[in-house]
């Protein structure tokens, strides 16, 4: 069911400290997508602005960014699901276009994390967990995902080295992605001997904060072909939630919201996991990619380690995953990440991925998770 397609994509380099304001950061990604689609501001019927709040001082950023992008007087609004904000933005854009309310909708994800300290950044993330019942103990993303790693090790015999292999894959492709914040290689030795952040996760098991923006332009099927030589069709969208509190979870060896979102997306697209030719998954931490292999059905529960040990998730493997460096090497500017993952898959399907190109992919999948598996968003694209 090809109701809408992505006809333009753009992304800034993800950097440690962007030397400009959030509106200028947003503009950089916007310009690239608009030139990609050959559109002018007046051609955009609506925009959706996505980011995590409290990293910069602009309250209600949608209005300010829409103004700077030249999108007045068309409608705009803010969509937020923390780390999956721009995937949620895409879901809404698809819905608006499919419903016939607009012919073109722009999704702009951004995050400027460098204006606050690293500890304050973690404090914000800690308050992304339940502020009444869990944040008072001093929680943060690495620690929550670390609990998942320990549970996975205990139940399935996954090891720290298995997680390190995932980091090494990320570095392999980060080295050839000019837009990645971390473009160096890493050795197994380096990854295994790094400082512990929250046991058993160490420094290289964690993605880096970064500043960045991404932009996607969604078009109705009636205009998609005239706007793009190779429109990339949105075949399936799935979304689900799990309790924010760990005490509401059934198990810590996978993310239930990812499984539910994937099931909805696969059903809508009419495909199975084995039909996916290239994937972008939410590797905020190495363990997150390991769980994604299993939650998406690329491997049975507990068998994710076999995929990475056999290098099946490299470019020439059975199921290439995060062959743009993933969040681990690209960096994770929260609101921009979903759009970046989607852009990578769009470029793969168009055959425009250069050195990172997977051979002839027809179906791509994006798995983008908000918080510690609070918001699951899975998008399936095809040409």
């Amino acid at each position, binding site marked *: 069911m090809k109701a809408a397609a992505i006809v333009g994509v753009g992304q800034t380099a993800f950097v440690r400290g962007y030397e400009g304001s959030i509106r200028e950061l947003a503009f950089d990604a916007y310009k690239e997508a608009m030139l990609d689609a050959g559109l002018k501001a007046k051609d955009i019927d609506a925009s959706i602005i996505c980011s995590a709040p409290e990293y910069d001082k602009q309250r209600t950023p949608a209005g300010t960014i829409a103004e700077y992008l030249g999108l007045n007087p068309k409608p705009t609004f803010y969509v937020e699901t923390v780390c999956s904000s721009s995937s949620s933005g895409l879901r809404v854009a698809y819905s608006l276009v499919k419903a016939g309310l607009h012919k073109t909708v722009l999704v702009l994800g951004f995050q400027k994390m460098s204006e606050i300290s690293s500890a304050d950044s973690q*404090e914000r993330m800690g308050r992304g967990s339940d502020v*009444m019942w869990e944040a*008072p103990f*001093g929680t943060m993303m690495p620690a929550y995902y670390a*609990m998942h790693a320990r549970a996975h090790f205990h139940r399935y015999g996954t090891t720290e080295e298995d997680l390190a292999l995932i980091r090494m894959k990320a570095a392999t492709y980060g080295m050839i992605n000019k837009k990645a914040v971390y473009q160096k290689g890493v050795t197994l030795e380096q990854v295994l001997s790094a*400082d512990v952040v929250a046991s*058993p996760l160490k420094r290289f098991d964690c993605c880096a904060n970064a500043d960045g923006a991404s932009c996607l332009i969604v078009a109705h099927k009636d205009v998609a072909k005239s706007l793009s030589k190779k429109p990339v069709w949105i075949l399936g969208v799935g979304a689900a939630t799990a309790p924010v509190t760990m*005490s509401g979870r059934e198990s810590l060896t996978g993310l239930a919201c990812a499984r539910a979102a994937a099931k909805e997306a696969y059903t809508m697209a009419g495909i199975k996991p084995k039909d996916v030719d290239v994937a972008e998954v939410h590797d905020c931490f190495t363990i997150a990619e390991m769980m994604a292999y299993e939650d998406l059905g690329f491997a049975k529960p507990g068998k994710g380690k076999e995929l990475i040990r056999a290098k099946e998730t490299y470019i020439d493997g059975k199921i290439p995953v995060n062959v743009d460096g993933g969040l681990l090497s690209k960096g994770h500017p929260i609101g921009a990440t979903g759009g970046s993952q989607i852009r990578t898959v769009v470029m793969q399907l168009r055959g425009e991925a250069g050195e990172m190109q997977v051979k002839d992919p027809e179906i791509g999948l994006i798995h983008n998770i908000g918080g510690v598996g609070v918001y699951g968003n899975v998008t399936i694209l095809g040409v």
Partner: protein
Amino acid sequence: MGFERFGTVSFTSQTKAAPFVDLLDKGIVAGTKCKGCGASYFPPRPDCSKCFSSNMEWTEVSGNGKLMSYSKLIYAPTGFEADLPYSIALVEFPNNLKVFGRLSKEMKDEEITIGMDLKIEVVKLPNDRVTYQFKKA
């Protein structure tokens, strides 16, 4: 209301579940149970999402729980640095009741294993604050 006394750092002071802290002062860690349909909640909540009742009773978390998982933090978010290193954990008590909290610092790394039996205990903190943690059963 008193709820701002809970935990190392508090972010909320207004809640109808504030009696939780009064019970902590008495050495009791409690969840709530719906008098309408019997649903049990931890963390405690004044509203039942199953039957919409707001008629709840406080029920003590008692007995032993099993350690589901944990992590020892070497870095902390702003405001918690003085506690480092500390471990957060998820513990499963009978009837599928799960409780999130910290492990007692008296527990040595070598003696922490997934599945071990733990008890819950109230802890008084400086500046009239109060919290709870898990210790070896």
